[in-house]
């Protein structure tokens, strides 16, 4: 079910001429089917732009992006996206928000599937609540369910936990890992947290800013399922240090 992503020679420039800003330059990346890849980098390194290109929300200026061998030209039904903010519709209940993609695509109500998803993220019993009655973490879980409700083969996440407090964030990391292990989807996670990236990903892509380029790809060889006790693991530590060094070397200090 999961699908591979092929990004080859992708550049993206916003605007044109001398006023143009190059967000991405010659990005090459292969993501295997079912792989969990995290992209880290400073603000403005184009990592969110890259995600939007993969999601078909914007076209690359040059280069090619393929998902499952098919070029990306527009948002495809096989992709679920989780944004930085939950962007839930306040007049819809939790259940109705999760249902939204199905309503738009007129593909039945799938009540059982919605129940299962809410169960998966621990939101049973909140079906009829409105978004404003939920905490930030719970809202982002609803957004995750909404992204998963069409059973996409690829999950794109744009700093989904950036606005959450540290504790909730760790909890969400563990949940995401569990969901990934259970569903086996391909995941592309944008984050600025090195710990989060190493904790979750099979490979961590380090990007450098202005223009956004891939600096290095680090493989994280830690057994699954991981938890935060792995923080003390030597391999974990080593990967984090390596990424931190790469980011600092590119003139970025967080």
């Amino acid at each position: 079910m999961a699908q591979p992503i092929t990004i080859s020679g992708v550049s993206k420039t916003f605007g044109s001429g001398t006023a143009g800003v190059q967000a991405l330059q010659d990005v090459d990346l292969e993501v295997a089917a079912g792989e969990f890849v995290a992209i880290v980098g400073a603000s403005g390194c184009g990592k969110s732009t890259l995600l939007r290109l993969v999601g078909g929300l914007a076209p690359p200026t040059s280069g090619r992006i393929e998902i499952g061998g098919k070029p990306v030209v527009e948002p495809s039904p096989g992709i679920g996206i989780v944004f930085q903010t939950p962007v839930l519709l306040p007049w819809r209940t939790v259940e109705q928000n999760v249902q939204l993609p199905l309503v738009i695509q007129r593909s039945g109500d799938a009540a059982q599937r919605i129940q299962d998803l809410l169960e998966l993220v621990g939101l049973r019993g909140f079906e009829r609540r409105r978004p404003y009655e939920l905490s930030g973490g719970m809202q982002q879980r609803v957004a995750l369910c909404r992204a998963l409700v069409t059973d996409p083969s690829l999950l794109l996440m744009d700093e989904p936990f950036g606005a959450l407090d540290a504790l909730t964030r760790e909890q969400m990391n563990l949940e995401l890992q569990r969901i990934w292990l259970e569903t086996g989807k391909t995941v592309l996670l944008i984050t600025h947290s090195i710990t989060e990236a190493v904790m979750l990903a099979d490979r961590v892509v380090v990007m450098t800013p202005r223009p956004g380029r891939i600096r290095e790809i680090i493989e994280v060889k830690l057994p699954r399922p991981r938890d935060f006790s792995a923080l003390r693991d030597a391999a974990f530590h080593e990967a984090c240090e390596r990424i931190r060094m790469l980011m600092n070397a590119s003139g970025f200090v967080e």
Partner: protein
Amino acid sequence: MMRRLGTMLYPIATLVALVVIWYAAVKLFHVPAYLLPLPGDVIERIREDFWFLLHHSWITTGITLGGFVLSIVIGVPLAIVLVASKTLERAVMPWLILSQTFPKVALAPLVVVWFGLGLGPKLVVTFLVAFFPVLVSTIVGLRSIEREMIELARAVRASTLQTFWHFRLPLALPNIFAGMKVSVAFSVVGAVIAEWVGANAGLGYLLLQANANLDTGLLFAVLVALMVIGVVLYYAVELVERLVIPWHSTIRLQNPTA
């Protein structure tokens, strides 16, 4: 309920204070009744002419509501069209803004010349006075949608119509209601202006009559009637707003227990 009464106490206290000052001023400076009648006299006049005032208030309320409804059924779709078409917006919007800079009171006689004396021209005048707030706030509401919300709509592959119906329009409702609340107050003003030219009934007409006869008591009675109409309609719109967008923060945060 008790809290509600508590919050109502403040405006009532202000009213009482103003009436007391009014009364004291008239007594103290021996203001003649044709300039400023005593509060008691105004109340007496309202009681005396109650049915008469109610009849004319009814007519004015009709024109107010008619013009207000016109403002919505024309203002909201017009805003939608202007937001949808950049070209049309560039061509039309500057003139709409310009149209707001000259006094509508000056337009009223022209409308009478063009459309005659019936209900129609009165609705047109009221509409001209009241539609702009609805138009502007609807435009602002339709535009003020977050980037990620638009991206979400695109990611779930919503058509233009679906994006409008499921995202843009509901998200614009709080702004539309804000515009409607201004518009309903303007509608009362519009109705009075409409009745100043070529009417033989309504509170605007009564105002002119009272003025011509130096009947200050009646004048004040009419002002009170207009106030009541304005306040009732305003809160009616607010009530509808509560029912339609209970999810919006301006409403939720007012009564946290609800």
